[in-house]
């Protein structure tokens, strides 16, 4: 069938619209990158859309990378992401495997108990006081334990485990394997895709976490990168840059732009490698409980 004139017009418009989507998604980052390497004075006088940098300097990047807070924030975040995600994966796998077994007595009740927490909870203040009472304030565990399982991700993983053929598990049982062996030797190895998706989701959540540290951390030495970023990006004064950052207003804007670039760089770098799991994850997530 040959496309009609109307269809062709539609196709053309559609392509234009989607090109606009690409442009809108990328342009802010392009603007920020170009601004970060531009000359500070040119930046202040700037009246252009910054499709190219105006002038060139890397001083702003030097300033950001020499800031000890940025450095320690990165180290802390690395800890929260790796340890936090490891705890998430272990706990979520245990929950998903045990509750995916159809012959488990009390399974329906436990599922109700868990899914209810998705729709109703104690809220910010009771949670905050609980964490305080457990003595977790100003400890790294405050960002790891309260977020040990995301109920939504658990449901995705459980749905995925339910599609594993039951014969596989039953025959392993007949061979005398216990459930721990089955989970770690059989179920997880055949669920590599869902594990990758879960790792991605949890890791991104830890990377972005801002509310937990805001509530539970007073000790600056434990601050993750997001809190450091807030101090640099959203404080009107430049004192957050620490002593020696007394470079005046001019470079201040460049420092903001450079900070944004440096903080999004890790994501952009791993992006090509994790990309292929997105759609898989969504396909898994789209399965109704």
């Amino acid at each position, binding site marked *: 069938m040959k496309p009609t004139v109307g*269809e062709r017009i*539609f196709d053309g418009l*559609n*392509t234009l*619209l*989607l090109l606009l*989507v*690409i442009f809108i*998604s*990328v342009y*802010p*980052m392009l603007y920020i990158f170009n601004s970060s390497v531009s000359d500070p004075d040119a*930046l202040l*006088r*700037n*009246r252009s859309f910054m499709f190219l940098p105006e002038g060139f300097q890397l001083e702003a990047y030097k300033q950001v990378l020499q800031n000890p807070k940025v450095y320690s924030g990165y180290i802390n975040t690395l800890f929260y992401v790796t340890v936090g995600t490891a705890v998430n994966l272990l*706990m979520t796998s*245990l*929950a998903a*495997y*045990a509750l995916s*077994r159809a012959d488990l*007595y009390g399974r329906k009740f436990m599922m109700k108990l*868990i899914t209810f*927490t998705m*729709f*109703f*909870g*104690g*809220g*910010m*203040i*009771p*949670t*905050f*006081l609980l964490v*305080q009472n457990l003595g977790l304030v100003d400890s790294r565990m405050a960002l790891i*334990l*309260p977020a*040990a399982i995301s109920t939504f991700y658990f449901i995705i993983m459980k749905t995925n485990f339910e599609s594993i053929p039951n014969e596989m598990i039953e025959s392993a*049982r007949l061979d*005398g394997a216990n*459930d721990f062996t089955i989970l770690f030797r059989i179920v997880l190895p055949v669920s590599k895709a869902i594990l990758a998706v879960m790792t991605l989701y949890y890791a991104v959540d830890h990377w*972005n976490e*801002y509310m937990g540290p805001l509530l539970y951390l007073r000790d600056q030495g434990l601050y993750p990168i997001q809190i450091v*970023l*807030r101090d640099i*990006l*959203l404080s009107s004064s430049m004192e957050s840059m620490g002593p020696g950052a007394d470079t005046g207003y001019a470079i201040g*804007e460049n420092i*903001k732009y450079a900070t*944004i670039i440096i903080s999004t760089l890790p*994501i*952009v770098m791993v992006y090509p490698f994790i*990309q292929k799991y997105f*759609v898989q994850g969504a*396909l898994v*997530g*789209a399965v*109704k409980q």
Partner: protein
Amino acid sequence: MDVRHEVITAKGIAAPKGRFAFLKKEWIRNKYLYLMLVPVLAYYLIFHYGPMYGLLMAFQKSYSPVKGILAGTWVGFDNFTSFFNSFYFWRLLRNTVILSMLSIVFGFPAPIILALLLNEVRHKWFKSTVQTVSYLPHFISVVVVVGMLNAFSALDGGLFNIIRSFFSLQPIMFFTEADMFRPMYVLSNIWQGAGWASIIFLAALANIDSQLYEAAKMDGAGRWKQLLHVTIPGIMPTMIIMLILRLGAVMNADFQKILLMQTASTYEVSDVISTFVYRSGVLEANYTYSTAIGLFNGVINFAFLVIANAISRKANSSSLW
């Protein structure tokens, strides 16, 4: 322990002698599963049901960390009434509902429209390029997004004011301008989330049976008719479930983002229930009062979810339970 023997008897005809015998058998058969669930249930009881127990504070005069919750003085609904009568109540409620509603009205259709447009693309490489690029903003943290908005709203050389001058408008301070708060909030949410949220609808589109399209073509349906009679009905269940979930969070405007974006001069439009709870509870330590406000918020959310789900079930379509 002879596992094989157990399996056979569990499925055997020998009826368990009452409940106790059954539980014993179940324990022997699945004890490792129960062991796995010990840390899981402990986590849910401590970190999810613990705070729900803490909600009792909402009906008390004050909170004492030493004595515990049950030792407090009960004051019934006093905390709630003083909140309903407070100077801020209507402003907080209005802002919370308006920001959520704007996010739903504009933010909910955006990923669906994007998915439908992508679905009509014939070149595979172009489709996947658009997808890949539109996911990117999702991975930028909320702090950085607000930092970007902040940098863009600089009076000298900020992008927003450059755009304004392009249309010969005077530069303004976006972050302290109350009129600019809602558009910035809603549009940046769409910028950040639409691409990522479209994944789920694209997955639903991919699941539509291609025979339905063939049949529609045989009946002489053009692309527009196919969209109306095959595509939209095909993703309707997904749309409904997503909308129910959205409505269940109608009172949760994005706390983190608003907290980062708001300035004292925009409280009139930007202060919402959750940011007020944070200031009143965490910063000023009015624990019982702010717990009551949070509970009020949670109950409304839950009611919305149940009602939305019930309506959807009545209409004989998808529902959460």
